[in-house]
């Protein structure tokens, strides 16, 4: 925290020597040992540490995988399998990297929802939040690039879908598309540049993470009360050992879940089609992205209508990117002076709705948009016919027997007839995804800006130590 004096005292000759030249040990000491941290952080605040561990795991396993991987369309699929089969512990390294991508993004989602709930994006932490959004974007890009590398069916056709999105941009779309692909279609040159970028981006993430931690250490941690630290003695404890042990415990619990996937269900978070080698001539029946991109995919597909001169395809792309862009504006959209939703009884309900909307969007992204959720009535049979006199018409039936009888009679009388299904009206995944997309944007653009002006906060404590000990408590005992 800025303004707090360094307590580092070098004891050895070498550390004294180093401290007067490059005070890096002092920096580490002030940042991760004697850093004053609010006493009241709950387990939702351990995901920062968990994410640091995830990044390290991904980089270490990724560097080893890159030693054995071959980025050509003929050999990529086989080389990933050879890693699993012939490299010592290659199966473990590859499973960790593959499951690790999912766990990393799972953790980042929890971390972001925590930030949304406790108002961690508000002054004085706007830059911290923006840097986090940049990290999130880089992670999405890295995950997408990495999913391409095993060169399975979903790698190729998923990449095609995403790259085609850029084609919807007016004027420059096609140029961007061929620039991304490095040619007229997704091929060897695309795979090689994706591999190169997949190796580059994690180090950019690591760089932004350093800025993110720096931006955290200037104002200090937010906390569940949303109150800033007023009294370092009463409100905070040093990061070490208090939070190293608490984060350490949470990290190990997280690793238990991680290991359960790695050892018992390494493929369950992926798609089976990605174990079919990529073939540009065969398109999978149902292209779905990885689970963590499903909400955005659902938003993309929810837009099936034009608005004015903007066509549905472009509009879908605008909404999809808009759903992330709106996060960058959040610090200025939320007008409430109270940070934590603990003390915002109405906002809390809307936040819960927002989490549900995101989960439902994921569900919609995984399903065919035309599939019904709630059917209104039964499907009926319809016979469309042209009778002997050349008259066209159609008749609807409930049962198969009379329908087929009518069809056969019409045909026998010299006409033509065919039998089909008249699908009953239903509330479909498309409708759900449209409703949830509406809520997603309304939450940021309408609810948060206006609610902040009207809502009456409830029960906000005066300070962190008051919230721990109660507002009526006598003077708080200082931390040890």
């Amino acid at each position: 925290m800025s303004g707090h004096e360094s307590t580092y005292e070098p004891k050895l000759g070498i550390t004294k020597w180093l401290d007067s030249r490059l005070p890096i040990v002092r920096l580490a000491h002030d940042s991760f040992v004697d850093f004053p941290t609010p006493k009241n952080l709950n387990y939702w605040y351990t995901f920062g540490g968990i994410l640091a561990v995830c990044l390290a795991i991904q980089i270490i396993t990724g560097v080893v995988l890159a030693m054995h991987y071959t980025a050509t369309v003929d050999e990529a699929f086989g080389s990933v399998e050879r890693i699993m089969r012939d490299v010592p512990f290659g199966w473990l390294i590859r499973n960790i990297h593959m499951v690790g991508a999912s766990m990393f993004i799972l953790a980042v989602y929890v971390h972001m929802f925590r930030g949304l709930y406790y108002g961690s994006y508000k002054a004085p932490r706007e830059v911290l939040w923006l840097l986090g959004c940049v990290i999130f974007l880089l992670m999405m890009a890295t995950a997408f690039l990495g999913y391409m590398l095993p060169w399975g069916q979903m790698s190729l056709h998923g990449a095609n879908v995403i790259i085609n999105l850029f084609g919807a941009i007016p004027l420059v779309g096609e140029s961007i598309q061929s620039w991304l692909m490095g040619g007229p279609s997704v091929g060897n040159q695309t795979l090689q540049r994706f591999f190169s970028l997949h190796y580059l981006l994690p180090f950019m993430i690591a760089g932004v993470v350093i800025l993110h931690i720096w931006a955290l250490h200037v104002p200090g941690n937010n906390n569940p009360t949303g109150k800033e630290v007023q009294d370092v003695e009463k409100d905070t404890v040093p990061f070490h050992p208090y939070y190293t042990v608490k984060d350490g415990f949470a990290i190990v619990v997280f690793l238990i879940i991680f290991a359960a996937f790695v050892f018992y269900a390494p493929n369950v978070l992926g798609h089976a089609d990605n174990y079919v080698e990529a073939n540009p001539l065969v398109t999978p029946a149902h292209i779905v992205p990885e689970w963590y991109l499903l909400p955005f995919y659902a938003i993309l597909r929810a837009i099936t209508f034009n608005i004015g001169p903007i066509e549905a395809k472009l509009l879908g792309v605008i909404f999809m990117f808009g759903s992330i862009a709106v996060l960058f504006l959040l610090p200025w959209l939320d007008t409430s002076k109270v940070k934590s939703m603990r003390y915002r009884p109405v906002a809390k309900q809307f936040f819960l709705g927002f989490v549900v909307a995101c989960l439902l969007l994921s569900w919609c992204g995984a399903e065919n948009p035309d599939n019904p959720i709630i059917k209104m009535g039964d499907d009926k049979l319809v016979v469309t016919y042209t009778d002997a006199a050349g008259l066209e018409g159609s008749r609807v039936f409930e049962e198969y027997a009379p329908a087929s009888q009518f069809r056969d009679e019409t045909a026998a009388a010299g006409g033509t007839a065919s039998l089909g299904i008249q699908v009953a009206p239903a509330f479909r995944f498309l409708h759900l995804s449209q409703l949830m997309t509406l809520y997603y944007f309304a939450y940021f653009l309408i609810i948060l800006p206006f609610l902040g002006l009207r809502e009456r906060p409830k029960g906000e404590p005066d300070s962190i130590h008051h919230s721990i000990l109660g507002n009526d408590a006598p003077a708080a005992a200082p931390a040890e």
Partner: protein
Amino acid sequence: MNLLRPLFAGLGALALTLAADAAGGAKKAEAPEGGWSFAKVPAGQLDKESLQRGFQVYKEVCAACHGMELLSYRNLGEKGGPFYSDEYPNANDNPLVKAIAAEYEILDAAPDEFGDPVYRPAVPADTFRSPYPNDQAARAANGGALPPDLSVITKARGKGAEGDGATYVYALMKGYPDPDKIKSTTDAEGNPVNYLEFDKDYTVGTLTQPLGVYYNPYFAGDTTPQWEGDPRHKPYGGFIAMPPQLPADRVEYMDGTEATTAQMAYDVAMFLHWAGDPKQTQRKSLALPVMLYLVFLSILLWFSYKRIWRNVAH
């Protein structure tokens, strides 16, 4: 319970993935009764005898059309494989594996001193010989259909849970309708027509089986164009170019096991499951120690946390 929250989040992600299904109208495959031995938690293992029988089925039946280009003969004698033996930790020395490899004549990668191609018996280090020189030859020999490579077929089917792919292979191989139920007639021009009659629940009608393909309820596809009956209740599945392969006694098992269709389907599914992930034995043996270590470490950290924070209200 704060502790359980990350766990619930993980389970939520899992549930979402499970919802992502794309099975194209096929019937849901059911695992054999009692489940797969290798899918048991915490330390399921493959059934070695079944693996050996499954290799026999692959070798005598499947290998005629399906390659396994990611496998080498040595894999058969490696730890967890069907012919692993403690006496030969290096599979290349295993006489059984050597003998299996030597049955196949392959084209050596290097030509002889005159530049002519060299054909020689395979050694354990060689990859499985493919039945066809290329995809075009494979299609030409199979009525235009390409028999897929079986190296990772069990990972390429199902939803990614342990045993999903094996369950698919098992259900598909024994899922063909009873040959007695396929009736034949001739159409107006005298061409033979094969058909199946359905009379179960709402699925009542006749399914015509086009020549050269075979109905299988577990194969993803669409039966609508061939279905004479209520289109709202068409039969599951689709038409596969592979004829039924495992009638009873198709192979004579060396260990004397009775070669029923279900037994052969079970064994070959077990073998293909091993082939898709030959290092799974190591994975499953390492699983329990890792989990126990992490649980133990988390308990230690929990008590450390309690002790360090004991005098701090928070």
